């Protein structure tokens, strides 16, 4: 299947090994604010991350940590106002998307960057058939006829393993189950074989068995198309099997980045450690489950210094005054650990001690 590329604005799609110098997507020092009646909510405060083709980045964090807002900023679907982006860059194949016109960005959406939403039922239009909504992608971006679009829709439904696709193409969203609906959302996102997919908690609304099926499907399709994938989640279990690297967010900042298995083995930030310790474990059956004390900070009034300090067991005076920068994490002897960084004054103690 070849894509008729609708955008000339962005060079070098996923053709072979092309441009190696700039990553597929790079977010640099991104800030997002919301103006509310109570004041300015700083939802994202200088986020940096990057994703390459074929790579999966998991963005991990509690509700309100800014992970979804970052994703919406990348997609360009933030409601502005009340949101605004005072600072930062979002580079897609090296080009800053924040400097593009609205029309240029719209053409990228769906065709080059697509998004999978959390709640598939409310994200599908209830009065339009599934086939129509899938076909719409081809009609908007490639100008296909209704008939051709429907054929493509059936093909896509087959690809995401919806049984009897041809018979169900004219059904409405409510006629599908939760898992099937999420498959349809995935099919919509995949339709034009984008370079990057952002999945915003794609399995949260599903039950556990269906979660596994959907994640497997997503991982399989990602391998097949060599797409970049940003997986936004608060579920550490989902991440482990799928992701290549992890970025942990807290109060609008990235507090730790690491390759996935390293993070599980040796977290370098007390918050990450707390998250890992609060996963129920079979070998600790019967004991009290650990929980991080306190609540996520109010984004109108983020604590000074490290935002995590009121909840941190290791917090010292410096944590209440100085904001820790995201610094590279090294072994005890100083050898570098590629891809690892932590925003904690006491990362050494956390990882090695």
């Amino acid at each position, binding site marked *: 299947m070849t894509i008729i590329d609708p955008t000339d604005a962005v060079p070098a799609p996923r053709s072979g090994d092309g441009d190696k110098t700039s990553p597929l997507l790079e977010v640099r020092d991104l800030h997002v604010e919301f103006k509310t009646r109570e004041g300015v909510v700083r939802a994202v405060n200088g986020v940096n991350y990057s994703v390459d083709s074929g790579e999966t980045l998991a963005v991990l964090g509690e509700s309100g940590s800014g992970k979804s807002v970052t994703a919406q900023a990348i997609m360009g679907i933030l409601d502005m106002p009340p949101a605004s982006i005072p600072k930062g860059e979002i580079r897609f194949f090296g080009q800053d998307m924040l400097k593009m016109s609205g029309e240029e960005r719209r053409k990228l959406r769906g065709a080059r960057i697509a998004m999978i*939403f959390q709640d598939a039922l*409310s994200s*599908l239009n209830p009065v339009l058939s599934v086939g129509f909504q899938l076909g*719409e992608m081809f009609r*908007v971006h490639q100008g296909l006829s209704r008939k051709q679009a429907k054929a493509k829709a059936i093909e896509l439904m087959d690809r995401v393993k919806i049984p009897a696709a041809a018979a169900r193409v004219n059904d409405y969203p409510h006629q599908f*189950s939760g898992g099937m609906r999420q498959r349809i959302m995935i099919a919509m996102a995949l339709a034009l074989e984008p370079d990057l997919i952002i999945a915003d908690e794609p399995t949260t609304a599903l039950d556990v068995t269906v979660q596994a099926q959907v994640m497997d499907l997503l991982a399989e399709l990602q391998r097949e198309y060599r797409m970049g994938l940003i997986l936004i989640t608060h579920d550490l279990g989902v991440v482990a099997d799928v992701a290549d690297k992890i970025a942990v967010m807290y109060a609008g900042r990235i507090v730790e980045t690491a390759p996935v298995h390293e993070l599980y083995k040796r977290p370098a930030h007390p918050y990450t450690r707390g998250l890992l310790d609060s996963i129920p474990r079979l070998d600790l059956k019967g004991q009290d489950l650990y929980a991080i004390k306190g609540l996520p900070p109010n984004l109108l009034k983020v604590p000074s210094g490290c935002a995590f300090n009121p909840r941190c067991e290791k917090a010292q005076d410096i944590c209440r005054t100085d904001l820790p920068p995201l610094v590279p994490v090294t072994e005890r002897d100083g050898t570098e650990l590629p891809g690892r960084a932590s925003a904690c004054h006491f990362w050494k103690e956390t990882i090695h001690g």
Partner: protein
Amino acid sequence: MSEKTIERPTTDEAALAKELEAEEKAAARQASLLKDGWADLRKRPLFILSALVIVCLLALAIAPSLFTARSPFSDGFCQLQNSMNGPSSGHLFGFDVQGCDIYTRTVYGTRNSIVVGVVTTIATTLIGGLLGMLAGLIGGWVDMLLSRITEVFSALPIIIGGLLIMSIWRTGDVWTVSFIMAILGWPQVFRIMRGEVISNKYNDYVMAARALGADSWRIAFRHILPNTLAPVIVITTMNLGVYISAEAALSYLGIGIQSPNISWGLMISDAQDRFLTSPHALLFPAGALSLTVLAFIMLGDVVRDAFDPKMR
């Protein structure tokens, strides 16, 4: 062993079958509003009855000459010596004060009533719907401005507004009356449309459509509009009857359709002075009016029952 043979071939398919089953139950509860409403509608006797009456009325309006051999506009149609004669064979409804055949006039009056009702309804739906959608979609100062304008129009009572406009134009045909009522009636549709658009535009599927690269036009007309239609259809059907009776009221008061145009309201007004001596001149046009309004209101009622999700 037996467990294994069941499980092995289709772990996936078994799960799928289960999903399908669960989903069918959900489907019964909340099917697509329009489809569901239509299926519901066809089963209601009241709908069939009102639809039949309306079909007859439409036939009368389109081809009145099929139902009467006389024409109210021909010479010698009114013979003064017949003035106020009661019903007789050949003149079932009798004659009015000018000696005109009431049956023929009633038949020919149907068209004006229906045209006024339909034209006004279409006009209010288009004006109110379009502006309501604009206000809802754009929001901000556009919404503010349009809403205030709407309030100005809806503050004007229809009788006073009608008097005002008629005193300027004085033509008194179907179009003037429709114009008056459309000008004063669109705020109602505006409010409904605006509210529906606002409640729909923050839905996830709108954001999903944006995330997949749909432009504003497509989002407005393909995604939001279909979701707002059901309540608008309901109010539109109800309004048909309301506008027909409003036309009769305006004509009765002398600020609607004027002679020589035929209107049921006008006929009622002409006949009222002699009601005690010859009631037929008033009763027949009044009956026709009542039947028509009843049919449309009944239709609106069953349509609302079928379409309004809150009534279920």
